């Protein structure tokens, strides 16, 4: 795909943009009474169709869960639903202090926490796969998940969401010093699911944290994936892949808070849209605080529009409070199928549909390789295939 970069900015031009009233560092509060339900006029809610959220962001009753949760437990890993004192002790483990009503409600009201606990120095080769299978699209419910990775541990955790649910969720991730961690959140919901989720990660000294968000299914999926650093030297790789069909709203917001020196972040999100009313939102917020000298950050969002009638928003946003930066930049591009690419492939005898399929696979391929979790890679490729079959290869074009 030949893409036209609508924004490829250097530090200099980002600084030129001048100071905008920042929504990037609200103070947050654990007290539910300090929060109000969103109206849709707030900067952080303006793209989200609140009416389709089933009240998850406001006053929905958090019912008993009808989502079945199962997991494997590789040697040395503890996975358990904990309650009471232990559950309460885990609230805010990632330093998360809610700036939304639903976040505060989940921390205050949800009695249990799903805990994945990887001890210090544990090296877990096999991925921990947590399957969350929803069974009722109208049952509003909420979940609190904590992934705790000890110092110098190495592990991969996959949260795989399937089925139907209306789920509000907070996922807190604590990455110990020197740990090397990969977390994948797969939203492969049925068409009628609603998922409002907030992931908050705290990255330890010299630790490396990879977070991959993959969203295919659901009527509405909104994920906020945030990263902060507990100490200097940490690095975060934020990957995302989404595919919106007719009528779907898929929203990914990231916020990387470079609050410590010598930290790194790299974000790559790629999306494809097809069908009437397919709507995707990507907001990439990066804040480089005054103390965060010597950091590097780059973020990139690319979207491929497969049919007419879709709506794609892509907003990179870099706020810089120090001049002492190693490197910072962002790129955002949204493009249709490139006629020249299709012509080239077809001039070799490849049919139009097959050519489109190749181009889309190519578009996602390097990202799928970066995820580097063989256990889900094959399924991912197949899911992309299935998505394409719905439209591009199917008869709807």
């Amino acid at each position, binding site marked *: 795909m030949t893409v036209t970069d609508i924004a490829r900015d250097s530090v200099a031009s980002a600084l030129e943009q001048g100071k905008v009233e920042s929504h990037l560092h609200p103070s947050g509060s654990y007290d539910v009474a300090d929060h109000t339900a969103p109206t849709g006029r707030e900067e952080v809610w303006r793209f989200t169709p609140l009416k389709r959220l089933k009240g998850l962001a406001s006053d929905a009753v958090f019912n008993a869960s009808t989502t079945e949760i199962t997991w494997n437990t590789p040697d040395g890993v503890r996975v358990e639903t904990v309650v009471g004192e232990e559950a309460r002790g885990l609230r805010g483990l990632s330093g998360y202090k809610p700036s939304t009503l639903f976040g505060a409600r989940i921390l205050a009201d949800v009695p249990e926490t799903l805990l994945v606990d990887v001890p210090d120095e544990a090296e877990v080769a096999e991925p921990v796969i947590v399957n969350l299978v929803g069974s009722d699209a109208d049952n509003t419910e909420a979940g609190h998940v904590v992934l705790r990775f000890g110092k110098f541990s190495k592990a991969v955790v996959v949260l795989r969401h399937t089925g139907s649910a209306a789920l509000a969720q907070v996922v807190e991730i604590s990455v110990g010093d020197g740990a090397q961690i990969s977390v994948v959140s797969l939203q492969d919901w049925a068409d009628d699911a609603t998922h409002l989720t907030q992931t908050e990660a705290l990255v330890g000294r010299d630790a490396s944290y990879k977070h991959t968000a993959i969203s295919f299914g659901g009527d509405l999926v909104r994920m906020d994936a945030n990263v902060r650093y507990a100490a200097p030297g940490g690095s975060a790789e934020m990957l995302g892949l989404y595919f919106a069909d007719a009528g779907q709203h898929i929203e990914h917001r990231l916020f990387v808070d470079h609050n410590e020196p010598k930290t790194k972040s790299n974000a790559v999100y790629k999306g494809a849209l097809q069908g009437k009313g397919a709507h995707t939102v990507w907001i990439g917020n990066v804040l480089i605080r005054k103390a965060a000298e010597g950091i590097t950050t780059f973020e990139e969002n690319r979207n491929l529009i497969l049919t007419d009638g879709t709506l794609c928003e892509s907003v990179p946003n870099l706020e810089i409070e120090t001049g002492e930066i190693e490197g910072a930049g962002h790129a955002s591009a949204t493009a249709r199928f490139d006629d020249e690419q299709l012509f080239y*492939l077809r*001039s*070799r*005898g490849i049919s139009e549909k097959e050519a489109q399929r*190749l181009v889309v696979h*190519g578009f996602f391929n390097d990202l799928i390789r970066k995820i580097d979790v063989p256990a889900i890679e094959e399924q991912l490729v197949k899911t992309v295939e299935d998505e394409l079959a719905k439209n591009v290869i199917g008869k709807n074009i």
Partner: protein
Amino acid sequence: MSILQITDLHVTVDTDDGTKQILKGVTLTIKDGETHAIMGPNGSGKSTLAYTIAGHPKYTVTGGTITLDGVDVLEMSVDERARAGLFLAMQYPVEIPGVSVANFLRTAKTAIDGEAPKLRTWVKDVNAALGAADLDPTFSQRSVNEGFSGGEKKRHEIAQLGLLNPKVAVLDETDSGLDIDALKVVSEGVNRFAANGDKAVLLITHYTRILRYIKPDFVHVFVNGRIAEQGGAELADQLEATGYDKYVKAAV
């Protein structure tokens, strides 16, 4: 037996300043076993002719015909033309990020032959075709044309020519931008293809240099959307000495 017949071809392209007539009546017959060279200055419409034969959507045929063995080529889609035996080595091969050369070649071969190539011999065939174009076997793991040097792109086109084995090869300035070693590799590839006997070659070039390695049976001087003169290989030698000036002036 194959004959590509182009008769009184008129082609326009839509530009920002409206529709522009580029080809103004091109007539050309190319039979198997023949190599035709089309030579002309920049902007004379050579690529337009090549793209129109291949069916690029940007070009509109406003008059004339193209047939391959009597069958109307203009009625065919781009991929149907390729499957019918037409091949275009492009002046500017297109990058396809994330699609490996191996995957691309396999998909193309399967489409052209109507069946998947035999697993047992395919990898060997690919490596041989790449090797003949002076490309390393590791090349097949790279994305199509992405990050290729100018010469690698052209040699990759020639490797495809060898693998896909069409009836008619149109080569659009495959020689431009090549150093002498790469030019020899490309020429050998074209000669190997032509040596099959039942193949036709339409070699589009700006310079006479490549004609030291590929001997044309016919040379056509292309100016301002038309063939201005035709002759044998000797016409190329004459162009080498005099350039296109006289034809360009005559065409104005």
